[in-house]
């Protein structure tokens, strides 16, 4: 739990670090971060689909794959339309690194222990991403269509956050 909290705090700090505050994120970077964040949650959900034992946890993981794939498809269509090439950056790299660590960590867990860890991390992860969208990515986006897609994403991911909280509460 402390490790998860630590990771969440680290991610929040990363996304609101002075380095980012000073150098404004560009649209290609924002697109890359948003897409990466979605892919991370899809990978986590796919792991959960093979490991989770609780049916609500499994259903939640299915929802995550369905929704994040749908949103990422919109994002891909949009960058194609805008002729923007998503640009890798430190935030995307750090997010991917953390996600890989989580997959390895959760890979060792089984049964109810996995279910609890996955859902707790989903709550923390969506909180982090939602806060980053609200305070960083949406305000920094210059293209109105990108901004609008991020706003749509935020609404959907806030729903996920509440859903994850509900499932987590039921597990206790």
């Amino acid at each position: 739990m402390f490790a998860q909290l630590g990771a969440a705090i680290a991610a929040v700090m990363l996304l609101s670090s002075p380095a980012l505050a000073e150098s404004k994120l560009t649209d290609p970077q924002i697109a890359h971060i948003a897409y990466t964040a979605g892919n991370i949650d899809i990978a986590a959900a796919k792991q959960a689909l093979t490991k989770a034992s609780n049916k609500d946890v499994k259903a939640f993981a299915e929802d995550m794959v369905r929704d994040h794939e749908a949103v990422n498809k919109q994002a891909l269509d949009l960058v194609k339309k805008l002729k923007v090439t998503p640009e890798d950056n430190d935030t995307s790299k750090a997010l991917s690194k953390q996600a890989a660590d989580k997959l390895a960590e959760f890979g060792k867990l089984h049964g109810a222990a996995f279910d609890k860890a996955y859902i707790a991390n989903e709550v923390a992860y969506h909180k982090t991403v939602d806060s980053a969208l609200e305070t960083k990515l949406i305000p920094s986006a210059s293209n109105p269509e990108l901004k609008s897609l991020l706003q749509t994403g935020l609404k959907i991911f806030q729903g996920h956050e509440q859903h994850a909280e509900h499932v987590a509460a039921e597990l206790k």
Partner: protein
Amino acid sequence: MQPGRLCLIAGVLSLAAMAVPAHAATITIVMENLVVSPAEATAKLGDTIEWVNKDVVAHTATAKNGDFDVTIPSRKTVTYVLKKAGTVDYYCRFHPNMKAILKIASEPSP
């Protein structure tokens, strides 16, 4: 019974049978940004509910009592004819925070 009266009864019956589809209303309920609006809608038996999903993700309209379970793909509209009366709480199975109420009166539209 006289043949004329039989004919009259048959006529009345066929009129009554026609009354439902002829006057049934269509009620539009929009799902946008994971919000159902109106959150509370009233309808009558035989009316058609038209769920419009404006989101990029799929939703469902799932009755808690099991009366209906309709899937509405992203950016699609799905219609459903109400077959049972009552006050039905429904939600989206994919996003359980999306909740709404449908009040279905047993009297068909006049």
